[in-house]
């Protein structure tokens, strides 16, 4: 687009302004005129972008869009794959339609709603991308399909085989977990590998758990801090997929093996499996969040959740950010929000210290 047309568009080309300045100063009359025109258009965009950035910084929210909107609006669509592996499948329930009577469809619809409401009410976030992105889920995916995943555009839920897993829509925190992957990708693109991947996983567990706690109006001390309780089928020896309160204790079953999650850096698992242990080492930041939230007390989303959310959006979080760097950012955010030496600031330092990470 940049190189093969005569009508160059600076917005696509992203010619640095200093290059345009050079052309204005040293180019031919025609070049100078073109560059000046380009630069005037370009400056408008740069100015707009800067103004938006300033507004975002000032309020912590994106600048209001020029068209007035009635506030965040949910746009949910639940599809059914009818046991095929075709995405998205056929529409089963669209926004505003009444319950279908199909358990998975209605649970997905309600779970998408609970997740949207949580982010909107607590963090003033308008959907996954903070721009009102439509929420799409497909249920009844595959045959006896034992998984739920985020494919970078939508959530997908299997029915489980009934022997190891029940249907994956059964746990609100799993629905929240999958959607939170979308939020993480939108804000920080944490690479799904090794420590940054485990941090990405932990973000999904933290927000998934907060969504469940918010829906049930549970305080940090009342919550069970389990991820995916109800998901393991009858006969499986375990209570959930993971425990943030006590990582490593969620299951111990002849078929599934034992919950491999560590809760301290000294037990960090170095492995090539599971994308470098993303679902394993997430136990460490998960447990730190639990410790911090229970130290602070009250509703976990009010303070600990806010610190985590703002830390995730901090520009210092890079795609390769690991536990240590993220911990320091949460500590800084806590100081900014609640004051240096505040109970919250101290709780963040203590929580991370207890899992072996010094801020």
């Amino acid at each position: 687009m940049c190189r093969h047309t005569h009508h160059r568009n600076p917005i696509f080309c992203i010619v640095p302004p200093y290059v345009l300045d050079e052309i204005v100063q040293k180019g031919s009359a025609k070049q100078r005129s073109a560059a000046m025109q380009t630069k005037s258009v370009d400056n408008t965009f740069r100015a707009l972008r800067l103004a938006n950035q300033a507004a975002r910084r000032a309020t912590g929210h994106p600048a209001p869009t020029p068209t007035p909107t009635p506030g965040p609006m949910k746009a949910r669509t639940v599809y059914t794959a009818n046991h095929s592996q075709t995405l998205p499948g056929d529409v089963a329930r669209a926004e505003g339609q009444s319950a279908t009577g199909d358990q998975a469809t209605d649970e997905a619809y309600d779970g998408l709603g609970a997740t949207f409401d949580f982010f909107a009410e607590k963090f003033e976030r308008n959907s996954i991308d903070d721009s009102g992105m439509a929420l799409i889920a497909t249920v009844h995916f595959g045959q006896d399909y034992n998984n739920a995943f985020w494919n970078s555009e939508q959530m997908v839920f299997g029915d489980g085989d009934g022997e190891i897993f029940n249907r994956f829509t059964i746990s609100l925190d799993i629905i929240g977990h999958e959607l939170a992957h979308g939020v993480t990708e939108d804000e920080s693109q944490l690479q799904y590998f090794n420590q940054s991947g485990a941090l990405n996983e932990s973000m999904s567990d933290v927000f998934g758990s907060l969504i469940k706690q918010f829906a049930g109006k549970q305080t940090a001390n009342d919550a069970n801090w389990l991820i995916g309780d109800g998901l393991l089928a009858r006969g499986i020896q375990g209570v959930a997929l993971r425990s943030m309160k006590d990582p490593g204790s969620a299951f111990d079953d002849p078929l599934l093996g034992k919950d491999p999650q560590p809760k301290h850096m000294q037990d960090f698992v170095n492995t090539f499996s599971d994308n470098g242990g993303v679902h394993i080492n997430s136990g460490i930041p998960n447990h730190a969040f639990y410790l911090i939230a229970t130290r602070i007390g009250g509703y976990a989303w009010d303070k600990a959740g806010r610190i985590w959310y703002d830390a995730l959006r901090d520009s210092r979080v890079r795609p390769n950010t690991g536990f240590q760097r993220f911990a320091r950012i949460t500590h800084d955010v806590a100081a900014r929000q609640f004051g240096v030496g505040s109970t919250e600031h101290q709780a963040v330092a203590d929580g991370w210290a207890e899992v072996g990470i010094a801020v």
Partner: protein
Amino acid sequence: MQVEMSEEGGVAYFPGLAKPVSIDVDSMEAGAADQLRQLIEHANFFDLPATVGTPAKGAADYRQYTLTIDDGPRKRTVRIQEPIEDPALNELVQAVRKHVKAARAAMREQLPKR
């Protein structure tokens, strides 16, 4: 012919499921063994690259299978990432998974009850 499969990834890590399960095709009932052999040929399994499928950027919790087929002179290990685009390969994976599931159920029967 030996077929071995392990499964990992997904919304959680289960050490038990990540352990490879082996199936001896030669000792299977003839009809099922023939069907499996046909699916293997149909999927061109021995000519597949070592890894199949790349998850979209930002995707998470997808599953991955490691499938090894040892047929004497021909042996190949392929890591297969969901979603599986190739219908023939998908059919093979689903068929192997059914046998793996049955094998796991049989192993489970033999485990001491706690």
